[in-house]
């Protein structure tokens, strides 16, 4: 792609919307993932007793749903991004393509 085509695309309002929406969405989810994972690690390091709190009358502890929850969070957050990107972002990218390359 030569620079003039790139500059034309970069000036397109739909492109700018695509870039900023995707960037803020991607970074929000990235930060959420970092907070959840390193929060979990810090909890393991400094809050062992908290995770060992029993739930109910049996042996189940708070740590089990928290740990399983981190795995499920990871899968769900990935799916959320992919769903939005594959519909909204791709449609927007297609629109940019139509507008610029007609």
């Amino acid at each position, binding site marked *: 792609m030569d620079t003039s085509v790139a500059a034309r695309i970069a000036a397109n309002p739909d492109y700018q919307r695509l870039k900023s929406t995707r960037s803020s969405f991607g970074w929000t989810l990235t930060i959420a993932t970092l907070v959840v994972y*390193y929060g*979990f*690690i810090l909890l393991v390091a400094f809050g062992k007793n908290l*995770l060992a709190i029993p739930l109910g009358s049996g*042996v*189940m502890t708070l740590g089990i749903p928290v740990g399983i929850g981190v*795995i499920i969070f990871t899968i769900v957050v*990935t799916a959320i991004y992919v769903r939005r990107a*594959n519909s909204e972002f791709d449609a927007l990218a297609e629109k940019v393509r139509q507008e610029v390359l007609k």
Partner: protein
Amino acid sequence: MSRIVSRILTTAAVAGLALAPTLALAAPDLGPAERQATNWTAIIMFGVFVVGTLYITKWAAGRTKSASDFYTAGGGITGFQNGLAIAGDYMSAASFLGISAAVMISGYDGLIYSIGFLVGWPIITFLMAERLRNLGKFTFADVAAFRFAQTPVRIFAASGTLVVVAFYLIAQMVGAGQLIKLLFGLDYWIAVVIVGALMMVYVLFGGMTATTWVQIIKACLLLGGASFMALSVLWHYGFSPERLFAAAVQIKTDIAAQGGASPEAARASGLSIMAPGTFIADPISAISFGMALMFGTAGLPHILMRFFTVPSAKEARKSVMWATGWIGYFYLLTFIIGFGAITFVLTNPSFLEPGGGLIGGNNMAAVHLAQAVGGNIFLGFISAVAFATILAVVAGLTLSGASAVSHDIYSTVIKGGKADSASELKVSRITTLTLGVLAVLLGIVFEKQNIAFMVSLAFAVAASANFPVLFLSILWKGTTTLGAVVGGFLGLISSVLLTVLSPAVWEATLGNPTGSAPFPYSSPALFSMTIGFVGIWLVSILDRSRRAQIDRDGFLPQQVRSETGIGASQASSH
């Protein structure tokens, strides 16, 4: 499985494949495994797998005509298929055997470990997958070097690839040899030669197409087998996790009581499997290790390469979504399997040595559980799957190493991007052959060495060298050729150096006294990643060369292409 007459094994065969010993997890030093009696059921089942995959290779060979077919299966893999193949590439035998063993020994700590292996995937999804697909063609160096001077960045990327591939490959080969002694009762060298030979056949003739299908089949077999084991365990407890956990706690309590603990201490020991224990030796190590796993996943060349096998950014995203789902599901299964091993294996004398401890070592937890829930046939099946798992991983690694040499070094650096497809393909095949022979030789050389550090080193290098260069070249306009190369090599060198100075190598492998390691933490990533990132940033902002201006000017076209896919390389015709 025959009655075992061997002496008690205090060492675990494949612990070193993944479990970093200094994390105080259940990873005893990696030592030679005792050869067991020949297991014909397992060998026959593995034979069926081999015949099936060779048939696929024959089919794939007919479709592997150009360099593009060889590296990326012509870009014609669907997102769902690629997701399974990524899962097949990523779920190693060590994840399966090592993590279920870790759960059996320390319960909750095993879960913490597996979470670390999963959390890199969302990062890949949000920041890398689609941009990689839009910018690259065959290797991650295509992306890292997109707007830079080709020669230096390609040389760096090929170095990063080959270092990661070499350490990962040696760990897999040694693991294969040890595992096969245990599971099949064959000699170590036979196992290493079989793995090397089959892997060369897949890659040489079938390229990425055959490698992908081997990985897909292996992922299905592993997920199927592990699901069956986990469901059998849960079924036994009326699908009540509480009942499974209660039974496991009771068994751990009884074991501690038999060991002479007071009733209170025994109960505490039993309950300890339900919460974090000794996983975190110190917070710095934990965070550093977490970073190596999280960002290392996003810098593994054989994983990154898989994003070029799909036709579009949409399919690349679907791949990573499926991969994350399958891998997460797999780690949930290993958690249940580990608890199942406590209740089914630790209570059954036929799986235990007279002095306590598992026959064949702790990494046999899942294998013994397979026999407990599914009899000899299922035991043979799981053993064959474990071997197939190693094959799928080494095939992906070799392909990635071969493409770094043929595409990045030969075609781009030596031939200045003017090599024709046929000669590039020839170089890939020669490299595959060379890597295969080297892997077999190194596998045999390292048989008796402590190689527990190798996989964590591979992740540390990927996180400290490959990831920062890729990340900043895609997202930061200011990155220059000089910055990427200097910072990248600094990350590479510091991660290797700090690993050598860490307890896992300095003490466990080189035999220096405990406590003498100059670098006290179990993973260098926190430090070496910082060195890599700061190196790239600092050198880039100080770079006033004419090339630096070209590099910065190239950012806009690169960004437009990475965001929209306009100009991205398309799938080939078939």
